[in-house]
């Protein structure tokens, strides 16, 4: 089971977190037993908006996250 924490605070949502979440949820539909998604409040890491969006895949913290980056990390762990 891969645990994904995705920040959906003001900063992260503005710069693409909602779109990453969309894609993650689509992926979860394909692998319902293997992915857990937690949408979390601001993780206080985005003082500089350049660090947003912030996503955690298990213990791996990703700043300035982009969809393809997050998805490939998740897929690595599923396989």
């Amino acid at each position: 089971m891969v645990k994904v924490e995705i920040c959906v605070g003001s900063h992260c949502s503005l710069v693409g977190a909602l779109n990453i979440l969309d894609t993650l949820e689509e992926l979860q539909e394909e692998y319902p037993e293997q992915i857990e998604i937690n949408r979390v409040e601001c993780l206080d890491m985005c003082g500089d908006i350049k660090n947003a969006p912030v996503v955690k895949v298990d213990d791996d913290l990703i700043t300035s996250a982009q969809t393809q980056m997050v998805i490939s990390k998740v897929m690595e762990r599923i396989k």
Partner: protein
Amino acid sequence: MSKLKGIYTDIVKIRRMVFAELARLALKDAECEEFDKIPYRIIDTEEATYRSSIFKERAIVAARVRMGLGMDYETNQEHKLLSEGIRDFLKNDNQLKEPLVNVIRFACEKCPTNAHFVTNNCRKCLAHPCSIVCPVDAITIEEHAAVIDQEKCINCGKCKEACPYEAIVNYERPCAAACGVDAIESDDYNRAQINQDKCVSCGQCIIACPFGAIADKSMIYQLLKSIKKGEDVRAIIAPSFVGQFGPLVSAEKIVTALKELGMKEVREVSLGADFASLHEAELFAEDIPEKQPYLGTSCCPSWTYVADKHVPEVKDNISESSSPMIFAAKSVKEDNQNSKVVFIGPCVSKKLEALSDKVKDEVDFVITFEELAAIFVAADIELTKVDAEEEIRDASYYGRAYANAGGVAEAIRQNLKVKYEIDPPITKADGLADCRKTLMKAKAGVLAGHLIEGMACEGGCVGGPGTLLATKRGAKYVDKFADESPYKFAFENENLNKNEPKE
């Protein structure tokens, strides 16, 4: 719908960063010189990332800054610092003026216009049906593949259909393909040019351009300055707002955050939708079909502009009823005479509606959800962490459902059924091209007795260019929030009596 709608790209990022910078400078009462730094703050690399040069990237950001402030597009023919132009603009009337939607000409990559191309899927087959079916003999079989003579081609598409290898594609300029009223033409340099006589300011081309070369103007700066000056600013927020700011941000949290930003009050535009659906039902019951052949709804401004600019013969059959925005704004202003009203919505063309003679005294500012999200970031308001106040209960189920395609007609129909025992046939136009087609049908007389709903954006207001969510996702939030209303029908809404604005 443009393929880019709902996808987060670097274009979206830059656009939002510009909004956030404008909001930041407005909030800190920055000097004009500070605006000169925005292109460098946003494009802070040493080499170009997106285009041929970093100087061009920054110049495009500067053009976005100008329009973000509400200024006109300017060709780069005269030496002028960004801040100089801004100082002149802010010193004078600082009002946004038409045209609302503009091509940033030097950002346009001059995509070829509608054409058929042979791709390298072509196997140069023996049958070559493409050249056989071509009615104008435009296809020759050359050394490696079939070739289309663009001078001769009439874009009939027969070759594309005949090819067994899917080797022929039809290619359209994305901006022009997204425009349902054919308002995008070419200038002398082959760059996209908006024919303002045809444009209805729906904003779909802004989303569709893969090079980010089209932008609309905004009022972010003027709104924030008004709040900073201590003016009594009150917000009316369009029904598609729920969910737009993330899954943990409830409607109540959005309202509280707006108050933290300095708004004295927030009302749902759906309250205005309840007024409007009752008024439109009354007009329908009185006039259709005796005095008027059919009734077109009035809430989508781009839809009404399609009638004005493209099918003027049907103009008088579009309802005269005020839009939900106007009703909601009037109800606020009647209760608070010296207040200023900001409409917050998914819509680009509402910015234009607010400039019209009928509306300019009612609505003072219009901003989009996307612009508001940037303002929250600039003001450092963390939406997930605000404490939500009391429940919102301004509007009925059907008023809240206005944001989804079909919702407007359904709300009016329910009123007609219960109050007047009329169940009219309904026609829904979904998307700009469909709006024009539907109005042509109405003109031809085939929609007699119909209630016609027009939505310029596919899916309704939730598909608007100023949204942050993918259209389907936004639609689900709208349905859920509508279900939570304490009232089902507009006529059950207890807020209507106490707030009834004069027509």
